[in-house]
């Protein structure tokens, strides 16, 4: 049975305060990295599914909280 | 691997230890056996340089329910209940990966407590790092505090106390000692000894991976190439959610009487767990590695036997009850598998799909390690450095502020607010509300107090007197909340015992610990030893961390360390012979050297009783022991805590021989700063110092008199509120 390998990227919605992203961004110059901005920290879920049909539903229902997060499905 | 070096040496065994193993087996050990011996005969597991010394410690008492040798110690708190407790170190893993090192330290000590059937109800942590101007030390501090919070908070056990010290000698060897307190009905408690040949060995909890194997990787049959380090991780990763399920599962199994015995898996994993269970029970054990649930495929037998994957427990179960046990594990969503059998004959056998791949007498593995005598020799002087951080000619105000702001003395609020200190609804005194944590035991109708203490710098000045001081300080902290000590646990963190100076420190410290416990009548119910804490700059300060649990009858009569109302008299109870030797002030002046005055142990003990009884009778508004930073700091701390100043004069204390500066900032055990009704204080024999009131800390001390506003004192004391 063919397996679909997928990677779901979940990131904070634009406009929502992302203190983790900010903290990382602020720490970069001290570590020698200049010119990096708009850092956001999110989550990544990898899975194998028998079919890609219900992946979006899975994302909407469980993997992401669509009030505060955006998601992107990458099939590999 | 160096060509020509025998494998056993790479694994840490000496030539003579190896010869002894060959003699006991009657042949050369194979790789599986070599791995097992190298771990159980390591210092960490066998205590080969400390076991003989530990025999000096008093371990018996009427209230002792479980003593050293069991997974944790326990004392009787009345009404059929016991309080279990133990402290353990996780120093080396924390220096590598502080978050996981500290987290798994907490996880491990909790398993020791619920392995005897006690529900964990509290945690405390004793931490030591280098000075805060070191980026590395800040990183370790941050990681360790987050790791402790992560694990303790997630599993729902309150972290109610602890201490953090910052001293240069810990820069390359931080100390992370974790303590757990548990509560149990005495009749429900269980021992570790395996029993009943024919009984099943059940492994519960998480699956087994390659955590912690690093050191034994020389035995891998496959060649290690580049990129293969990932296959041999040294860092153990903790999962508090997994432990939470395992904990509930084990307690339910014990409550239903389904287990013959229970043992946690910690250092050296299955090897030590199975070995110790068998040894305690005088039986043998067969382990079938093919039955162990694995997280990674194709693990070799030696890897399975030495893996330090976390959140696993080993139980002995009668065959007829195995299904019930597995059903309860299923309910709690935690893994279970029958992986072996208890046997007669005292052999531990490792099998893979029925074939014996390793075998040795239990006694040889667990008790056969040679114990070494130390070769102590007192060093000729102070072997640690000195660093001046306080300008000469500082005013007494500047000195007080410098001491209040010293990271070792300053408020640890930044750290303890990262811990859930109230889950369980038992916490009557949260961190920094009193000198000891207090937990109510409504089931037993009383309460317990806990304190964990140890000033390595002072122990370095005199390991014998310094250790006695640590024990007395612990007792004093308990007295401040009206508690009487019931038992003591300790973690001995020291340098290399094979060096004469290190041996001397360890030898003298253990004697001090024994003498102090005997004087107090408090038994040692368990503990831990961590040696070889040395870096390129030398050893750590000798750091015997001491923790005591005490009982008190009424949690409503506990007071605290804060001044309560203007007009209350302030007094000093107990012996007061302060000296600047070993003090924080001496450290800041760069003047540390060998030598501590002998404390008046009898007077200190008497003062503890006086304060304890007075607190229980509700006679005092506040009680706070004089320790780091001396009397001036103790007064300032009580003032800051209460949000109200004080006006005292300590010149008459000089009649006891103290110079103003010694009286202000000298350290040493025995003294309590108390406040309350003036007549009451006089009745208790307190030396009156002055009154609570105003918005400044005013101390009359002859030509070293000082006045510091409460606001400024508090600002200094909050120096650790790191972003």
């Amino acid at each position, binding site marked *: 049975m063919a397996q679909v390998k997928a990677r779901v990227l979940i990131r904070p919605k634009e406009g*929502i*305060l992302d*203190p*983790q992203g900010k*903290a990382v961004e602020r720490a970069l110059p001290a570590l020698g990295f200049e010119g990096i901005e708009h850092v956001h920290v999110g*989550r990544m879920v990898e899975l194998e599914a028998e079919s890609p049909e219900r992946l979006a539903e899975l994302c909407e229902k*469980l*993997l992401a*909280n669509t*009030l*505060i997060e955006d998601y992107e499905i990458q099939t590999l | 691997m160096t060509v020509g070096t025998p494998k056993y040496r790479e694994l840490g065994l000496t030539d003579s230890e190896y010869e002894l193993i060959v003699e006991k087996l009657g042949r050369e050990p194979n790789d599986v056996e070599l791995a097992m011996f190298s771990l159980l005969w390591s210092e960490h597991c066998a205590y080969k340089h400390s076991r003989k010394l530990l025999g000096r410690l008093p371990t018996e008492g009427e209230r002792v329910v479980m003593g050293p040798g069991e997974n944790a110690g326990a004392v009787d708190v009345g009404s059929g209940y016991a309080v279990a407790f133990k402290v353990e170190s996780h120093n080396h893993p924390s220096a590598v990966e502080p978050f996981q090192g500290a987290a798994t330290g907490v996880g491990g000590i909790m398993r020791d407590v619920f392995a005897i059937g006690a529900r964990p109800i509290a945690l405390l942590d004793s931490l030591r790092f280098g000075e805060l101007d070191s980026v590395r030390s800040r990183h370790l501090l941050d990681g360790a505090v*987050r790791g402790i*919070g*992560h694990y303790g*908070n*997630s*599993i*729902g056990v309150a972290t109610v106390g602890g201490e953090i010290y910052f001293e240069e000698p810990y820069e390359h060897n931080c100390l992370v000692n974790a303590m757990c307190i548990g509560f149990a009905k005495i009749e429900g408690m269980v021992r570790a000894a395996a029993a009943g040949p024919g009984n099943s060995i059940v492994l519960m909890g998480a699956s087994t991976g390659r955590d912690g194997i690093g050191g034994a990787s020389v035995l891998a049959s496959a060649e290690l190439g580049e990129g293969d380090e990932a296959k041999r991780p040294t860092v153990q990763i903790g*999962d*508090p*959610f997994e432990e*939470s*399920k395992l904990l509930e599962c084990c307690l339910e199994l014990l409550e239903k009487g389904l287990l013959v015995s229970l043992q946690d898996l910690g250092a050296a994993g299955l090897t030590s767990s199975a070995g110790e269970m068998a040894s305690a029970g005088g039986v043998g054990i067969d382990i079938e590695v093919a039955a162990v649930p694995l997280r990674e495929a194709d693990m070799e037998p030696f890897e399975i036997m030495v893996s330090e994957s976390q959140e696993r427990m080993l139980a002995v179960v009668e065959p007829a009850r195995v299904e019930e046990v597995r059903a309860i594990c299923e309910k*709690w*969503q935690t893994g279970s598998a029958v992986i072996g059998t208890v046997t007669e004959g005292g052999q531990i056998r490792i099998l893979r799909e029925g074939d014996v791949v390793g075998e040795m007498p239990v006694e040889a593995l667990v008790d056969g390690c040679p114990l070494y005598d130390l070769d102590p020799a007192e060093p000729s002087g102070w072997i640690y450095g000195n660093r001046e951080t306080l300008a000469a000619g500082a005013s007494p105000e500047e000195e007080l502020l410098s001491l209040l702001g010293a990271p070792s003395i300053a408020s640890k609020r930044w750290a*303890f*607010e*990262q*811990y*859930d*200190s*109230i*889950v*369980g*609804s*038992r*916490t*009557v005194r949260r961190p920094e509300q009193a000198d000891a944590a207090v937990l*109510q035991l409504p089931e037993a109708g009383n309460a317990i107090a806990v304190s964990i203490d140890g000033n390595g710098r002072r122990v370095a000045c005199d390991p014998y007197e310094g250790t006695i001081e640590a024990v007395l300080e612990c007792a004093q902290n308990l007295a401040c909340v009206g508690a009487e000590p019931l038992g003591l646990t300790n973690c001995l963190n020291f340098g290399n015992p094979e060096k004469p100076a290190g041996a001397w420190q360890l030898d003298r410290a253990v004697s001090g610990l024994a003498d102090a416990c005997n004087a107090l009548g408090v038994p040692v119910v368990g503990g831990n030893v961590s040696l070889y804490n040395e870096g390129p700059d030398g050893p750590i300060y000798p750091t015997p961390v001491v923790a005591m649990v005490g009982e008190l009858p009424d*949690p*409503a009569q506990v007071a605290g360390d804060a001044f309560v109302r203007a007009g209350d008299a302030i007094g000093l109870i107990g012996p007061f012979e302060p000296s600047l030797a070993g003090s924080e002030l001496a450290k800041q002046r760069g003047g540390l050297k060998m030598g501590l005055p002998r404390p008046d142990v009898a007077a200190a003990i008497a003062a503890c009783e006086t304060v304890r009884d007075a607190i229980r009778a509700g006679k005092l508004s506040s009680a706070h022991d004089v320790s780091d930073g001396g009397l001036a700091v103790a007064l300032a701390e009580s003032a800051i805590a209460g949000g109200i100043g004080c006006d005292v004069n300590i010149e008459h204390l000089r009649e006891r021989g103290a110079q103003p500066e010694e009286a202000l900032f000298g350290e040493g055990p025995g003294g309590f700063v108390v406040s309350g009704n003036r007549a009451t204080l006089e009745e208790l024999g307190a030396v009156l110092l002055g009154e609570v009131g105003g918005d400044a800390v005013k101390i009359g001390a002859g030509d070293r008199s000082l006045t510091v506003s409460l606001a400024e004192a508090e600002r200094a004391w909050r120096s650790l509120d790191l972003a």
Partner: protein
Amino acid sequence: MIWGVLQFPGSCDERDALRACEIHGDGARLVWHEDRDLDGVDGVVVPGGFSYGDYLRAGAIARFSPAMEAVAEAAAGGMPVLGICNGFQVLCEAGLLPGALLRNVELRFRCHQVELTEEGTGERLSIPAKHGEGRYYAPEEMLDQLETNGQVAYRYADGHNSNGSVRDIAGVTNERGNVLGLMPHPEHAVDPLTGSTDGLRVFERMSRGEFANHGLTKSPRA
């Protein structure tokens, strides 16, 4: 009144909640997450802790449990439901309450006593807060709606909002007012031995259905 206190793998404060209900003078029992049976239960507490390890998102997995399905039904029928801390997170994930809880702006778990103001009455409560993800968030339009409906139940008092919650919101109700979510822990403020007893007021008001009387008193922030 009998409270049912849900218990998930990883719940921490369920026994504290049981105890608080009893101290308040009500009966209480634990409800295992796999049970749909709310028989004899007059109100539900979804307790604090780290259900399912907070894995994926706090409350994201717990909200799918059979017990929560039963709670959702009961709530729709008007049963009082009190979600505390992780419980608040579960109720938001389940859609029984508006908004979401995000990571504290300080990026640290913090356990400390906070002062809350009670909307409508102005009463001040001292209650412990202990969480790492307690920053309340909802989009502006939703917030305006909540204010208009009187669904904001509690706010952090001046200087006491350390997690960065929008409009200092510490607790909200659903439209009907029978479901209340609160980030700080009232069940840890019921015993004089362990701190303040102001938390009893929250249980009191829940059991009397007092949060349903909103809408009549406009929030001063609207």
